[in-house]
């Protein structure tokens, strides 16, 4: 039985246009993602990975092509679809010395869109649900700690809990591994995989390092050189595939543990600087 597609992208071109320039980030992207898949989005800096998320979230209008998320053609981020998407952005705008406790940030994942104040009973229920989610991501000890006192790894768990607390069908994670050491990278990926599997959530995760994702990946979206290519990790991470993508010699090396290292430089100013190994 074929799994239902939760994301379908046809002939998508995206970028940023102004009066004078039309900066196309990538064009003619075609792919679909089935329910429950764990998808890694990789590529060099500035290639358009976050831009792809913005289009899928409806924040950025496509230049051309069609995007359907959870069966709905998303034209703007106001559509109800976004309530079913948990999102952890690359950067957060809160004050780094904020004294607001972590539980309140998670709670915004439940009530942030609502108008007016919560009644005391509703407020208690929201806090209980937020605490339960913190337990699931193993961060219950951080619930009452000020945000400003948390480390990068601890914050990632808090933001993951915030993204999950609204019971999403889709989870978009933009470089959640960036501030973690190798051990915590692996732990965090396992945690996401376990939680997503239990709740039947489809995960799209942007990363620079493919290796912690290798055990859990169903699919890879590789964004580079204005193109978006999709396949499984074994298809994408080959010298022939990436050489063709970049129009420049690229070598993919694998060590005895199956870890990948990519060596090479690309045309169009992209530097192959990600540490796949």
């Amino acid at each position, binding site marked *: 039985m074929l799994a239902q597609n939760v994301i379908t992208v046809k002939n998508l071109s995206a970028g940023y246009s102004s009066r004078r320039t039309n900066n196309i980030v990538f064009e003619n992207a075609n792919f679909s993602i089935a329910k429950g898949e764990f998808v890694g989005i990789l590529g060099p800096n500035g290639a358009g990975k976050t831009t792809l998320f913005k289009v899928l979230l409806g924040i950025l209008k496509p230049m051309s092509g069609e995007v359907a998320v959870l069966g709905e053609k998303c034209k703007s*981020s106001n559509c109800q679809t976004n309530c079913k998407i948990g*999102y952890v*952005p690359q950067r957060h705008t809160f*004050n780094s010395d904020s004294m607001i406790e972590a539980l*309140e940030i998670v709670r*915004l994942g439940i009530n942030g*869109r609502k*108008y007016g104040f919560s009644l005391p009973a509703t407020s208690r229920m929201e806090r209980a649900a937020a605490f339960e989610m913190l337990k699931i991501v193993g961060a219950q000890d951080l619930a009452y700690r*000020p945000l400003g006192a948390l480390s990068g790894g601890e914050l990632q768990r808090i933001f993951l809990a*915030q993204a999950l607390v609204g019971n999403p069908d889709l989870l978009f994670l933009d470089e959640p591994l960036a501030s973690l050491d190798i051990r915590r990278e692996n732990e965090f990926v396992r945690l996401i995989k376990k939680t997503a599997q239990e709740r039947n959530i489809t995960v799209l995760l942007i990363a620079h390092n493919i290796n912690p994702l290798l055990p859990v990946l169903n699919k890879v979206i590789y964004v580079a050189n204005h193109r978006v290519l999709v396949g499984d990790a074994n298809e994408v991470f080959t010298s022939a595939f990436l050489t063709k993508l970049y129009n420049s010699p690229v070598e993919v090396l694998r060590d005895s543990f199956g870890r990948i290292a990519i060596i090479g430089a690309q045309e169009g100013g992209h530097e192959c600087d990600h540490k796949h190994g």
Partner: protein
Amino acid sequence: MNATTNMDNLMFSFNIISDLKTMFQYDFMLHAFQAGTIVAIVAGLIGYFIVLRRSSFAAHALSHVGFTGAAGAVLMGINPIFGLFLFTMSGGVFIGILGRKAESRDVQIGTVLAFMLGLGVLFISLYKGYATEAYSLLFGEILGISSSNVLITLIAGILIAIALGVFYRPILFVSLDEDVAEAKGLSVFWIGILFMLLIAAATSIAVQVVGVLLIFSLMVTPAAIAERLASKPSHGIIISVLIAVLATWLGLFISFYLPYPVSFFITAIVFIIYIFVRLIPNFRNIFFHKLP
């Protein structure tokens, strides 16, 4: 208007009830307490979000833009409050359209702020009469508030409080985590404009109490103190409002007996509390860690 005019024989009696009774026999003190309380509540409410968004400089700039509007109105012979309101609202919409990043663009905002203040000075110099109204807008003139001004302040204050109550969570979400809020479908653009309009409206009424130059004392300092103490936004808002109200009441009370401006006492009180909270790093842990 000076509080000690024709009241030189008034002395603090250490009987608060009796002192307050004496104080409230004077209409100007009653009006000052009424308007001051409304303004302090509004400033404390919106101030917490200003501090969370790190938009205090933008809020400060709005008050200066308002001063220019007020000075222009004085020059044209109309009520300066209209000029103040028009300019702060227009400035609020302008900063809102530029977006959240504009709110923290210190250099650009500072440049516009300095120009607007210069323009205000020009307007005052062009004015042939006594520009006492413009002066009072710079430093506040709470003891000169009329009962009709109290009513206007009350209506504006209620409207601002209602708007903040309705949009409390979306504004909080956008202030704390703009990208996630936008991804969840909140319109960061419109919430930004609404927020700047609310700041503009709050500034227009707060100027009566502390003036353009001292607006920070009610709109930013109490909220900055609250941000250091509260672990929940709702507690932060309550603390911010309480400090603003306390400072305003104490400032008015002291100025009734001493021949110095109310604005000075209000700014001094919030400054002392701020320094106290900053100097004692464990203050929050000592008093607030057991809050549920």
